């Protein structure tokens, strides 16, 4: 039925209903003019009206009272709610009642929010609980925990949350007469918490002072995260009907929320901006008291807010001195900052909470703001909105792109674990995109199984329509290219970035900051594609060009420096890479830089030091990074897992296998719960954990993990990929220890072939594979072939590694074994001893290779008739086997 039809039915119904029943029939026949279904519908309605016994008549008052009257006693259900005991009422709002409850077995107090005008049909309960599980994963010191959510037997939903004693942010500032700096600091902590949630694809949607409490110790707690979304998705007639009923938070709702259109991270930016406004000016921008809902909506949608400075002046003129003292010069920046956050056009707001935080930092440090009125992005956005028919899909793609671009600079560092990979988790991105569509044109919206790549492809098509606005088009291409790169679609990324580069050169000239930025993006892509010459060339060009057009400490210069360091690291030029990354870290230690950028660079620096064999430096850096990341991202973030893996790798290199295992298990725990069980990230972490098990002789456990890992990786990347090679290498190591040499050889050869075809002959990974293959021939006592392979490995290393690198030392020890097997004692002794001396400085004495060297040296010195040396190593070798015995008992 459509609305015309419904109008017609109603018209006939009203006319007929006013007639005496005896005349209704003949009236209907005439009025419907042969439209039998119309007549049947109206007749049925008349019949219902005559009965007056429907639910709507009889049950309504009762139902409404039951649902709405807070005096309806909690009844037995409220005395005990699962494990919680209700002890009092904390408050009542438009949406429900909040109870204070205790959980006696855990000794904690909780707040339980019971939604009173909503219920949940059984079909939706499952989704409700799955969403609440996601929210429960938000683990941030400034976000009140959501412990539980469920429904009463009758379907009434409730949420169990951390109970927070504190006062609303605005009141706290007023009462304590907080300075402007203190206000901004408090506000910044609020932003950080919201940013954290956004990076977990959770949008608050209902930020307001009463949801932001300051505890007595001055710390912040955000309440009700993501609950607004859940409340909106509860079973109700329609979403539209809610806007009328939800009066309480209108003042902080973004225009797009009021209009009922797409809600995104920028809606939270807006609400934050409104709160900031109130903190600065001492009052909200609009006085909505005494206005009806629709009048208030009109004000919020149409009126431009006064500058906060103006509002503050008005306030103090009225004798209301709740706003803090601010100098005239400072107001200029604060006005821009605040008005940018609450711009009615989403596209002109800060594109992410992170950008808002950056500008607050800039303000606090007296640096110029980033907020600029007419960016290319804004022009592009306007173009897209002008083409209104530009389908919901574009809008959503665009919003994702914009949302994700906000994360870009922070995470470029970690190709594996950035916000994009994070958001690309299929389920999460689906939910995220569906969120973006919610309230939009649902008929044009995506189907349930629409993947992010499909959305991106649509975005590209739409971008091609932007040919009239080359700059905007180039920006969109570059953005989309970056996303494809993060998703591992290198070919697609490649062509888009090249198009973007070409467009920018054509419209802006060959030498400017935009071209420089594109070159840097391309260099990182080339590095991912293992095309290192191109990568380095692009990085150097991009850096030089950025330096020419920007001040020396500009973030883009730091980013370009970082990119060059990363490329040098990837191609194995560690000394140069360390120098360059050090420089990037220095730039990013400047006061206005973001700690997350610095953490990313330090992490890369730690990696480079690791590869270069400087384990102590690497460990110290990684510990520092770990602390920073936990602070920035929380305990259970993939970046934290990454750093744990790095720390595990260091322990592994030092021969501390149980310590290594411990780090790796912590990492696997995080990664698995973040990405899911079948994700390549999980597979990689399994491989690494398998390695630390192998070296503790737990072969069956290790092999099981590694096979699982290889299957996941081959499925994800195809058979020729370094990650697959890495898993194969580990499978080979296990096989060799289990004595299945043919299997081991097959694994090592496959790994070597993959490394060769990906990296060429000079990469140290190829050397490791050669060295491992040599180990097989040692086991088979084919010492001649073993010798050849070890010498090949050393030749490969000579091109990329320093002579005192532990991989070099290990290969020399292994070469010693191969020579000993050929009874070439003098040469053998030379290799064993040299390798031994180098490795002793780098690794713990219990490392397997040192033990091998000692055993070999005993035999060699015996054969060379050097009894003193032999005795020295014999004694140490005896200690080794004693230790091995002890370890075995553990």
């Amino acid at each position, binding site marked *: 039925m459509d*609305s015309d039809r419904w109008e017609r039915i109603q018209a006939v119904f*009203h006319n007929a209903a006013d007639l005496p029943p005896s005349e209704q029939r003949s009236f209907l026949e005439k009025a419907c003019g042969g439209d039998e279904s119309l007549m049947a519908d109206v007749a049925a309605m008349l019949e219902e009206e005559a009965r007056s016994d429907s639910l709507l008549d009889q*049950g309504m008052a*009762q139902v*409404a009272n039951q649902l709405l009257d807070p005096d309806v006693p909690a009844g037995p259900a409220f005395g005990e709610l699962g494990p919680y005991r209700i002890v009092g009422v904390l408050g009542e709002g438009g949406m429900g009642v909040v109870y204070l409850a205790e959980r006696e077995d855990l000794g904690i107090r909780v707040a339980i929010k019971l939604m009173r005008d909503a219920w949940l049909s059984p079909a939706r309960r499952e989704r409700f609980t799955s969403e609440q599980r996601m929210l429960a994963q938000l683990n941030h010191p400034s976000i009140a925990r959501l412990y539980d959510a469920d429904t009463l037997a*009758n379907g*009434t939903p409730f949420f169990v949350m951390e109970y927070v004693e504190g006062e609303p942010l605005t009141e706290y500032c007023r009462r304590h007469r907080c300075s402007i700096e203190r206000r901004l600091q408090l506000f910044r902590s609020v932003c950080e918490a919201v940013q954290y949630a956004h990076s977990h694809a959770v949008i608050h949607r209902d930020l307001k002072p009463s949801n932001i409490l300051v505890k007595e110790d001055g710390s912040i707690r955000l309440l009700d995260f993501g609950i607004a979304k859940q409340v909106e998705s509860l079973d109700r007639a*329609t979403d539209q009907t809610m806007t009328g009923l939800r009066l309480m938070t209108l003042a902080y709702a973004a225009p797009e929320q009021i209009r009922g259109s797409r809600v995104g991270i920028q809606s939270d930016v807006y609400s934050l901006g409104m709160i900031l406004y109130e903190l600065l000016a001492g009052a909200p921008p609009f006085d909505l008291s005494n206005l009806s*809902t629709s009048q208030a909506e009109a004000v919020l949608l149409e009126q431009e807010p006064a500058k906060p400075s103006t509002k503050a002046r008005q306030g103090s003129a009225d004798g209301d001195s709740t706003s803090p003292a601010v100098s005239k010069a400072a107001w200029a920046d604060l006005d821009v900052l605040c008005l940018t956050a609450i711009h009615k056009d989403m596209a002109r707001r800060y594109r992410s909470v992170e950008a808002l935080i950056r500008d607050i930092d800039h303000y606090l440090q007296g640096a110029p703001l980033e907020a600029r009125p007419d960016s290319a992005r804004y022009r592009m956005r306007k173009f897209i909105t002008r083409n209104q028919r530009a389908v919901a899909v574009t809008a959503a793609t665009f919003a994702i792109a914009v949302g994700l671009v906000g994360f870009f600079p922070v995470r470029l560092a970690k190709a594996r674990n950035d916000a994009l990979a994070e958001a690309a988790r299929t389920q999460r991105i689906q939910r995220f995109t569906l969120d973006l569509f919610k309230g939009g044109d649902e008929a044009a919206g995506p189907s349930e199984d629409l993947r992010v790549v499909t959305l991106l492809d649509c975005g590209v098509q739409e971008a091609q329509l932007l040919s009239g606005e080359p700059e905007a088009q180039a920006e969109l291409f570059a953005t989309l290219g970056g996303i494809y790169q993060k998703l591992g679609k290198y070919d697609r990324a490649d062509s888009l970035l090249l198009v973007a580069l070409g467009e920018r050169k054509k419209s802006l000239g060959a030498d400017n900051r935009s071209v420089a930025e594109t070159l840097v993006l391309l260099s990182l892509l080339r590095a991912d594609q293992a095309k290192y010459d191109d990568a380095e060339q692009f990085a150097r060009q991009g850096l030089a060009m950025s330096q020419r057009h920007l001040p020396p400490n500009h973030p883009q210069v730091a980013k370009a420096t970082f990119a060059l360091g990363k490329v040098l690291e990837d191609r194995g030029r560690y000394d140069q890479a360390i120098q360059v990354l050090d420089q990037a870290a220095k730039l990013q230690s400047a006061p206005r830089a973001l700690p997350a950028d610095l953490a990313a660079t330090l992490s890369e620096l730690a990696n480079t030091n690791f590869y270069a064999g400087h384990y102590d430096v690497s460990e110290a850096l990684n510990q520092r990074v770990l602390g920073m990341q936990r602070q920035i991202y929380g305990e259970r973030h993939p970046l934290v897992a990454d750093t744990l893996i790095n720390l595990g790798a260091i322990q592994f290199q030092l021969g501390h296998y149980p310590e290594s295992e411990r780090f790796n298990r912590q990492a696997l725990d995080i990664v698995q719960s973040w990405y899911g069980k079948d994700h390549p990230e999980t597979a990689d972490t399994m491989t690494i954990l398998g390695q630390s098990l192998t070296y503790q002789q737990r072969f069956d456990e290790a092999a099981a993990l590694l096979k699982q890992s290889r299957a996941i990786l081959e499925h994800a990347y195809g058979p020729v990929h370094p990650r697959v090679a890495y898993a194969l290498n580990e499978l080979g190591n296990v096989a060799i220890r289990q004595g299945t040499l043919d299997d081991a050889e097959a694994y090592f050869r496959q790994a070597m072939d993959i490394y060769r075809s990906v990296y060429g002959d000079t990469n140290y990974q190829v050397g490791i594979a050669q060295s491992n293959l040599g180990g097989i021939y040692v086991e088979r006592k084919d010492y001649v072939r073993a010798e050849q392979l070890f010498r090949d490995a050393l030749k490969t290393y000579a091109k990329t590694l320093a002579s005192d690198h532990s991989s070099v030392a290990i290969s020399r020890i292994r070469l010693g074994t191969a020579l000993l097997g050929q009874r070439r004692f003098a040469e053998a002794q030379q290799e064993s001893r040299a390798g031994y001396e180098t490795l002793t400085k780098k690794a713990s004495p219990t490392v397997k290779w040192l033990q091998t060297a000692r055993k070999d040296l005993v035999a060699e010195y015996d054969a060379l008739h050097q009894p003193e040396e032999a005795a020295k190593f014999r004694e140490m070798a005896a200690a080794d086997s004693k230790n091995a015995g002890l370890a075995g008992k553990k």
Partner: protein
Amino acid sequence: MEPMASWGNDVLALDRALEGLARIQPRQALMVESRFFGGFDIPETAALLEVSEATVLRDWRAAKAWLAHELRQAEG
């Protein structure tokens, strides 16, 4: 809160019927929701929706008859 169980099915059926109505005439659905779920009386509903009381009465009457019919069909 117990009575809910006894008329729970009806309410769910009503919810579905309301969704249908909301698609073609959101204002009317909102009105039913305010009246039925919100417990608003006629003047309150009129104020909320910014329409005259007569319009509320008229819309309510038709919507009620229509929804009752839908519910009966749902019961089958």
